[in-house]
């Protein structure tokens, strides 16, 4: 199988490569349009800031390439957020593959002040949270309420395209799906055996 990892200026790409290696897969890290377009599977990772990443993708025409992919695509963390329609992180228009909008946990303060104080919520969320209402074959053999590792200050709202939910201050999208596009807010490459199962499932789509 030919797996392409989109190479750009926001990524913890080595971790994704090692995680694939642990499940017996190898991948090409590339920003070559043809290689990405012709891969069997495409992984779009990301750690960083939305507007800088979007500018980088646009300058290299990668935004158009990603939007037009027909094979299974998996966005991870910032990658997933960039696949949404808009991010409040520096008011950034994103790829618009998912309808969801990306908002900041910190902006929830007014409505949830009492709960936030009581539960000592920090922003960003860092750590292991359980995922539930799991849908699609991305979560085959993953039990409801299993744990994944999250590091994020921004989140995508729950919507029709939500295929996994997590709770932090409010319920939000832990994973999204539309057609051939999948996105996960957590880091499967760092989510122990649960994450490895999800990566395996993605490769089997």
């Amino acid at each position, binding site marked *: 199988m030919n797996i392409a990892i989109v190479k750009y200026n926001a990524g913890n790409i080595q971790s994704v490569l*090692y995680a694939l290696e642990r499940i017996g897969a190898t991948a090409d890290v590339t920003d070559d349009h043809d290689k990405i377009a012709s891969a069997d599977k495409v992984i779009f990772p990301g750690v960083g800031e939305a507007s800088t990443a979007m500018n980088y993708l646009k300058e290299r025409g990668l935004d158009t390439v990603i939007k037009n992919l027909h094979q299974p695509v998996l966005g991870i963390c910032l990658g997933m957020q960039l696949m949404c329609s808009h991010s409040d992180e520096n008011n950034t228009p994103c790829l618009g593959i998912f309808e969801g909008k990306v908002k900041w946990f910190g902006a929830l303060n007014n409505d949830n002040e009492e709960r936030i104080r009581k539960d000592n919520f920090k922003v960003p969320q860092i*750590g292991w949270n359980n995922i539930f209402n799991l849908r699609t074959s991305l979560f085959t053999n993953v039990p409801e309420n*299993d*744990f994944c590792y999250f590091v994020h200050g921004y989140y995508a709202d729950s919507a029709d395209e939500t295929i996994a939910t997590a709770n932090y201050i409010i319920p939000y999208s832990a994973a999204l799906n539309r057609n051939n596009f999948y996105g996960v807010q957590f880091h499967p490459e*760092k989510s*122990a055996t649960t*994450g490895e199962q999800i990566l395996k499932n993605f490769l089997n789509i």
Partner: protein
Amino acid sequence: MLTKRIIPCLDIRDGRTVKGINFENIRDAGDPVELGARYAMEGADELVFLDITATVERRKTLSELVNRISPHINIPFTVGGGISSAADVQVLLNNGADKVSVNSAAVKNPALIAELAREFGSQCVVLAIDTRLEEDGNWYVYLNGGRVKTELHCLDWAKQAVDLGAGEILLTSMNHDGTKQGFALEITRQLSETLSVPVIASGGGGIATHFADVFNTGKADAALAASIFHFKELSIPDLKRYLQKQGIPVRYQSTS
């Protein structure tokens, strides 16, 4: 719901895991990669590797260590030890580390925190603080593995570091480290309630109730310990079972 993290810490000297008491009397505790992989399998939520090798070659040994660790560890890990520039950090992140911890270099040059946060994101910048409660009732910040005292107060320095972009605080109480008599609850609670970022409590964890105390009373987001795990005085699964019974949210393994 977000769970409280249990983080084994591996102090590394010359490629081996070691453990000292009150920063002194160092004992050997095994191969860091084997030990790290074992902890990951047992349900550790993250790992911290601190290189305490005191040589000029340290920068190279740290990146070699990360290279050895990353292929085998399927949970997040932090590395630290003598990191003093963005170039150091770039190499470690490229080799697969998720976060770096900075300590003395950030005290000497606070702008380093801002630079690392800007370049790599706050989420990978952990500020480690070694602090000691002195007779005057204040918690002072220490440098160089606890050898050099500064006039900085712990809470002031932590606040400044978070403003500069530190994404987490790893707080070690030198009074408690190695004693197994429990964590420093009061200073941990002060930091955790004051700061907007997670606080990892370190130093003094000896038995399971100490961990419950540091989460309930100390309001810590995570707790770190070393020797009790290395020398199998407390196993991670037993600890998590205990915490769960106390109503503290922890992650448990779906298998095993």
